């Protein structure tokens, strides 16, 4: 990690950085009054009028999962990633996955991933030769690596999982359905470790966000009782990936009743 020039100790809370924080708690009765935090060295509370939380970045794989593309478990980042080749081509050869939804990356690398996929697509359509495609992609891939290794760019921004393991039981992890950390732990302790089985039992992941906010935390909580994170699985994603107006779906509807939907008539005997 690169050194941060701002002071560590909060003698002047404005503009200081506290590192190694393992727990954050909003404090107050009718409104936010302060923020408590824990580090290995101390527990303290700072007065605060506003708290901004950022849990880190994770690629949004919902659309890819809905499409049924293959995914692989990335153990060092503790997350699922859409499986692609270096050009971004997925397990469906007509689908490329590029940018942040493939991996969290530097801005330049994300942009270049689109260009790389574009060159491969041009090759698919016979617009460039194999060697031309290879040459141009190789040049861009070099730029991608250079940017990733550049000063200050080496960090990965995935969600830091150990925090989930310190969550008190009464913390709500699924805001859509109001499911607490304790409830997830109880399910896992009772032997339910597949994330979709936990979803079926507790409804976490059934709300409008479909687990965008809670899936990682739920997975880590289950892992307290079942260590194999990959086995725990990924939530089944159902369409639509964002809520849509009922009229939008109706617009796709058949103009006439499908045959199986016609109820057979009963005649008077």
């Amino acid at each position, binding site marked *: 990690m690169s050194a941060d020039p701002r002071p560590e100790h909060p003698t002047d809370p404005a503009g200081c950085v506290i590192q190694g924080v393992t727990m954050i708690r909003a404090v107050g009765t009718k409104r936010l009054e302060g923020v408590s935090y824990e580090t290995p060295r101390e527990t303290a509370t700072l007065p605060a009028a506003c708290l901004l939380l950022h849990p880190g970045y994770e690629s949004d794989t919902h659309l890819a999962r809905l499409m049924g593309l293959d995914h692989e478990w990335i153990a060092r980042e503790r997350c699922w990633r859409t499986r692609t080749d270096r050009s971004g081509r997925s397990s469906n050869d007509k689908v490329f996955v590029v940018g942040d939804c493939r991996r969290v990356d530097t801005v330049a690398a994300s942009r270049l991933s689109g260009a790389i996929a574009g060159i491969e697509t041009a090759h698919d359509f016979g617009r460039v030769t194999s060697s031309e495609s290879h040459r141009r992609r190789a040049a861009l891939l070099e730029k991608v690596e250079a940017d990733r290794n550049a000063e200050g760019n080496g960090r990965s921004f995935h969600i830091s999982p150990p925090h989930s393991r310190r969550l008190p039981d009464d913390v709500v992890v699924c805001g859509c359905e109001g499911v607490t950390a304790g409830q997830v732990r109880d399910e896992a302790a009772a032997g339910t470790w597949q994330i979709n089985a936990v979803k079926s039992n507790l409804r976490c992941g059934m709300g*409008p966000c479909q687990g965008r906010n809670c899936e990682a935390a739920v997975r880590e909580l289950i892992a307290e009782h079942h260590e194999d994170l990959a086995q725990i699985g990924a939530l089944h994603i*159902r369409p*639509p990936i964002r*809520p849509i*107006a009922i009229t939008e779906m*109706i617009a796709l*509807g058949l103009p006439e009743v499908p045959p199986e939907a016609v*109820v057979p*008539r*009963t005649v008077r005997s």
Partner: protein
Amino acid sequence: MKVVVLEKDYMARHASGSNAGSVHHISRLVPELPLAEVALTMWNEIEALLDDDCGFQRVGHLKLAESPVDLESMIAAAERLRSACGIVEQFVEADRLRDIVPELGRGHVGAIFSPHCGQAQPARTVRAMRRKAQRHGTTFVEGVEVREVGRRAGVWEATGKGETYSAPVLVNCAGAWGGTISACVGEPVALTPLALMVTALSPMRRLLGPVIGLASRLLSVKQFNNGSVVVGGGYRGTPLLAEGRAELDYGKLGYNLQAAVETLPHLKAGKIVRCWAGLEGRSPDGLPIIGPSATELGLWHAFGFSTHGFFLGPAVGRMIADEILGLPARLSLAPFGIGRFLALTVHSRATALQIRNQEI
């Protein structure tokens, strides 16, 4: 009696957890009505049975006629039902419909209201059954797909995932996969896999009382206590049985929702949160397969519930248990015998059609 349940995925993974939670009978399936009456009684006492109300709400079911032809058909079905069972149905005149459902669109000419019917929560019901069964000593084994069953020296063996489970009695309740199990003992049934689509709308102002249906085209609309609305009725997506999943058919889903909005115009403001389709099996004649094996001792079947297994479930469990224990039968399971399909391979096609037409 020790019971072991072998589940190929996890409890409530398929039809038992993904159905829309309707608790009502299907009037035109006359041979099924005595069984439906038992099921309805059990649902109305579900809390005493399972120590959990399973989210069952006796909001009633209102089946609407959209035309005079619908009305005739509905009345004829009601007459047949009256001779077949004691389920209460009340006729509702057109001018009284909005007393029951103020939000109803215009043009409905009458309805049948079934006051003891309603809705429940599938996953919750499965969990309640499991908890109660576990308290009585039942073991649930998940993640074991039984690929082979056979009887050896009077004992049934079910094999899956390298393990063999043995018992004197075997019950085949493998849902959409029930025909595969029955085929192991020489009683194949050609189930048609179905993927019935359900849509959940985000919570709306609580307006709906009874579950709403239509007489001549499929529709089911219900609202839960938190305001969320569930629309279904039996529109078919594409089942992918080998993959254990289904794909939606947006053309049919759109029509399903159009029917809902025509019936209840206030739903036009609805937002779709998610759509899904579970996997279940339809039997060749639309009636379930319930009862003893036609070829082997100690084997019972309970599968092929053809879109209404959630409702019938409690009654079917009771019937099968009574048979296994040698208790007197409350009603005849003859209409549901698996033998009727074995006979079909012998009879001519014309005879097969004749048998099916008796249900229409």
